[in-house]
Each structure stands twice: as C-alpha cells, then as structure tokens.
C-alpha cells in the first residue's frame, strides 16, 4: 500500500509541474496576442504591409536624380468617415510623375456643418509596397486641421517618389480617409507619431 501512495505522490508532483508549465504557456500566449499589436505595427512599417505611410516629413530630394525614363501614375482617392457632412476631394484625380521629381497636389476640404471641427486625414497606399518609396515633404495629414463652421480650405501635399521604386510598380493609389477628431481634440494630437 505504501508503494501505491508514493506512486500517488509522484503523480501529484508530476501533475503540478505540468500544470504550472501549461498555465505559464496560457499566460504567455495571452501576452503574445497583445504583443502582436506592436509587432504588427513594426512589421508594417518595415515592409509597407498595410500601406500606411510615415506621417513625418521626409527630407527634400536634394541630390537625388530624377529618373526621366520612367513615368508612374499616382491616383488620389479621398473619403470622409461615415456620416460626416464634409466635402473632401483632390484637385486632380491622378498625376503622372517621374521618380525623384517633386510634385504638389492640392486637396480641398469644406466643412458643411455649422460647427467648428478638427479634422485629421489618415493616408493609405495600395499596393502597400509602394508606401515605402513615397516620400512626402509636406502634407496636411501631418497635423490636425481645425475648420471653422462652413470653412473651405485648400491643403497642399508635396511628395516625390524614391527612384528605387521597383520597376514593376507603374501605378498606385494614395487614399486619404478624413476623420472627425473634434471630440478627442488635442488629446490625441500626437497620434500621427
């Protein structure tokens, strides 16, 4: 009988070792789920996976060669977040640029409400890979746009394409989604970081 009991004690010890490891794995995987959020962000930043462009001004293209042998079509696409009565569109729907060449495109926003608002545009590039080669030297999306009631504003965006842009990309879309940040106000002023 004593042998039986020592077996049982051995079992108990073995059990608690396995249980501890399994519970640790559960905790680890729960944390891993959350760790995936910054990992995904970093991954996208490096690979352009989700088409997010960097929201900080690039250096100018000084000393960069303009590759006149290639022409790339850049299409602009604008949307306003659901249910917000603003007008938001680019002056031109698409332009053709040589890699390395600096271009400016104006975007027009009009607040059709009778309230002052704060707007913020978020860019997205499709295919995402192109976002790695899109350099904006100036963009309204870098900061929040306060708009008075009924105000209409012209917002410039200046960019050039890195001549390292892969040859297979002849055309890409730069999309802006305009969000209403009036409520969040300045609290999220640094979200673009």
């Amino acid at each position, binding site marked *: 009988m004593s042998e039986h009991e020592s077996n049982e004690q051995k*079992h108990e010890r*073995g*059990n608690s070792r*396995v*249980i501890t490891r*399994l*519970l640790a*794995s*559960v*905790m*680890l*995987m*729960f944390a*891993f*789920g*959350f760790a*995936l*959020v910054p990992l*995904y*962000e970093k991954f*996208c930043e490096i*690979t*352009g*996976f*989700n*088409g*997010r462009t960097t929201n900080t001004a690039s250096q100018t293209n000084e000393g960069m060669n303009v590759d006149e042998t290639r022409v790339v079509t850049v299409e602009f696409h604008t949307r306003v*977040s659901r249910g917000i009565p603003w007008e938001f569109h680019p002056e031109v729907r698409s332009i053709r640029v040589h890699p390395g060449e600096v271009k400016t495109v104006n975007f027009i926003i009009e607040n059709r409400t009778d309230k002052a608002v704060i707007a*913020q545009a*978020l860019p997205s590039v*499709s*295919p*995402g*890979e192109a976002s790695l080669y899109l350099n904006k030297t100036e963009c309204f999306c870098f900061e929040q746009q306060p708009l008075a009631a009924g105000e209409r504003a012209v917002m410039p965006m200046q960019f050039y394409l890195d001549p390292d842009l892969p040859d297979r990309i002849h055309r890409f879309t730069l999309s802006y*989604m305009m*969000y209403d*940040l009036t409520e*969040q106000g300045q609290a*999220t002023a640094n*979200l*673009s970081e």
Partner: protein
Amino acid sequence: MSTTVSDTHSAHDAHDDHHDHKPTGIKRWLFTTNHKDIGSMYLWFSFLMFLVGGSMALMIRAELFQPGMQIIDPHFFNQMTTMHGVIMVFGAVMPAFVGLANWMIPMMIGAPDMALPRMNNWSFWILPFAFLIMLSSFFMPGGAPAFGWTFYAPLSTTYSTDSTALFVFSMHIMGMSSIMGAINVIVTIMNMRAPGMNYMKMPLFVWTWFITAFLLIAVMPVLAGVVTMVLTDKYFGTSFFDAAGGGDPVLFQHLFWFFGHPEVYIMILPSFGIVSAIIPAFARKPLFGYASMVYATASIAGLSFLVWAHHMFTTGMPTFASLFFMYMTMLIAVPTGVKVFNWVSTMWRGAMTFETPMLFSLAFVILFTIGGFSGIMLAITPVDYQYHDTYFVVAHFHYVLVTGAVFSIMAAAYYWLPKWSGVMYDDFLSKLHFWCSLISVNILFFPMHFVGLAGMPRRIPDYAIQFADINQIVSIGGFLFGFSQLIFLAVALKCAFKKGKPAPAKPWEGAEGLEWTVPSPAPYHTFDVPPKV
C-alpha cells in the same frame, strides 16, 4: 498499436462494483468529479446546442427558400447567422469532442479518471452559463450579436449593439472552459497512462486529442486577447482596430485568424482519431501506418499556425505574402492526404462490415475529402478573389465541419454507445438516421458549391432571382437534415433508458483497445488498479 490486457482484469471489476456509490438526483450531476458523468453531460449539452444552433440554421434556410424578404428581417437574419456559427463551433462541436475525451481517454490509457477531476467539473459547469449569457442577448435592445461569428472589427466595435459585451464575456468563459479542458487532457495523458502504455502505443484518438489540447492552449488565449481588445475598443476608448486612433482594422483579421485557423483543426483532429479507431475495427485489420498518422497529425497542427492569412487574401497583401500563405495552405493537403490514404489502405482487402459507426466513418472519409478539395480550390489566391465570401466557402466549411466533424461525432456516439449505456442502439433507427442524414446533407450542401461559383454572396438574406431554384433545393435539404437528427435523439434516449439488447463487453468483433476490456455499461470506476498493457 496492439494492446493486450491481462485477464486479471475482470477481478478488478468485481471489486469496482461495490464502491460504486454516488450521490443521487441533481447533486450527482452538480458535484460529480467522475469523468464518465462529466463526459455524458458534455455530450448531452453539445447535442442540445446542436439542436439550438440547428434551429437557427433552419430559420436562415426558411428565409432563403425564396428570393425577397419573407419571414425575418435582415438584422435578425444576421443575428441568426452569427449565433448559428458561434453555437455550432463553441457549443456543439467543441464540447462534443471534450465529452468524448472525458469518456474515452481515461478508459483508453487505463487511467482511473481524468487527472484533475474537480477542475473537470468546473470546466463543464461554466459552459451552460456562458451560453445562457450569449443567448440572453436576444432579449436586449438591438438583439443578439449580428456581426458574424468572426466578429470582424469595426462591425463588432463601431457598428455593434451592446450585446457585444455579453458576447465578449461568454467568449471569455468558453475560452476558460476550453483551456481547463485542454490542461486536463494533457496532464491526464502525460501522467496517468497505465504501465507499458507508452506514447507510441496510445490509440490515435488519444494522440489526436493530445495534439488538439496543445493547439487549444496556444490559441484560446489569443482569442481571449482579441475579444478583450474588441471590448476595450468599444467601451474604453482604445484604438486597437480603429484607424482614426492609429489602429488597424486589418490587424483584427490577422489576430482573429491566428486563432481561427488552428481552431478549425481543433474541430477536426479528434475526428481523425475517431475514424482511425472505427475503420480498423470494422475492416478487421490494424490501422495502416499508425506512426505516419501521428506524424501527420502533428504536422497538420504545426502548419495550422502558418496559414491564417489565406482567409484574408482579398484584404490586399503583398504578392510574396499571398504566395507564402497559398503554398503553406496547399502543403496541408500532404499530411491530410497521408491520413486519407492510410484509411483507405486500412480498408483494402479487409473483411469489412457496415455497422452504423462504420457507415458514418466511410461517409466521413469521402465527404471530408470533398471538403478538403474545395479547400485546396479556395487556397489558390487568384481564384479566391472569385470565391471569397460566396456560398462556395459556405459549402466548403460545412463539408469539413458537418460531414467531417459532426459525422465523426455521430460515428463515435454509435461506436461507444453500447459501452456507455450497456445496451445496443436500435439498429434500424440508426441506419435510418444515417441514410437520411447522408442524403439530406448532400442535398443541403452540395448545390451550395454551384450558387457560390455563380456568385451568390453569403450572409445576405435576399438573393438574385436566378439562384431561386438551387436555394429551394438547399432549403429542402436543410429541413430534411435538421429533422433527421431527431432520429438520433430517439436512438440516444432509447439507450439512455436502457431500451435495447444488452451489449457485451466488446460488441464489435474487430475493435481494439482497453475500453473494450471493461464490462458494458462501463462501471462507474474503471482501472482503479492500472491494467498491464
């Protein structure tokens, strides 16, 4: 995988009988720590949920019987598709497998019970509460969740009603239940095997559940994390999935499918184990390629972590990523093919008989393979753009989950019912159940391939007029299949009330394994003294 048991065993059974006392009435079930009681509760609960989720499917099919809106409004239709999915995945299929694991794993490895019996009681008894919370959301303003069982953000965050909170909490509870169940299975298998029962002698059902349990440990916490993020995005101002706050809705899909793809293998690996037990029994030949079955199961489990983005080809991915996920997905066909060929080779030149468990297993092999083939079609990135979110996808995953997982559970139930209840099931009713199910399930799901390829989108309560004929056929199949399951209820009730021929300890001539060495019905306590293997 030959298991020989010494004859001293029957002596232990006599010894078992006289300490077979247990509390009676409701207390027996509330406080039980017996793996057989808990297994039975899991199985009955999952069957109840199967009927609840099935009624929702019938509501969907009734609405889709004709084009136009007839019976239910679109928002309620969305609630039906959502709850049907959630209940069938988390309420029917998963608990049924846990129930089978509870009943069979200790008996198959010669253990007296599960390793952690009190936790076992908990992991079952929190489940009914999870589903009460989930189902009570129907009575909230705005109704139950209506964002699909995949609860994609922003549908579940920006555009959902407050039932999301109940959804999240009940998901948390289900997750806890699954994790506790998985821990129990792993500890039992690692520490409670009878002397001589080494890993490569374990029945395949035990092996597949062992691997499934590790999958559960790995991905259920990720699901818990995702639902938590949905909750905080909706109520606490975080922006995990909200682009306006710096988040990314596509991230939701990555996180969800990182859980979701292993989850679909969680719902099929135990089936592989069941079929690998039944086919050798009725082909009267040992399983062909036992070791390759084990390695194939493990590689399927490993690959399941590398294929999640094949659910998201249309979200726009770099070519390299699309190719990677496409090839990885197709690679899964290799170990799965190994399994199918092994089952076929097991039957080759076997002395086959066609009892009901075998019929369900054969249907499983053929129909699951059809589901596998449509899976390979869906894996092809360029054509996935055509198939994505159409009825072709619905046909695919119902072939692998209904004629796959559910058929294998039916096969398991018929195979082990004599052991559980001590009586043989009603043979006529069981055959009737099989043939009705087999015919109706194909009327139900096969034509969905065609409307899917023709472009009928899923999760829409109305459809273009040219899909009307096929949808009527599908709906008729759906009602036939639904009501055929009541035959199974009749069979199970007859067994539960001991109406039938008494079953011998080993009712199947070719069956192998320790569970057949104990009398039928299995005594309340088995293997108090470990058997010699």
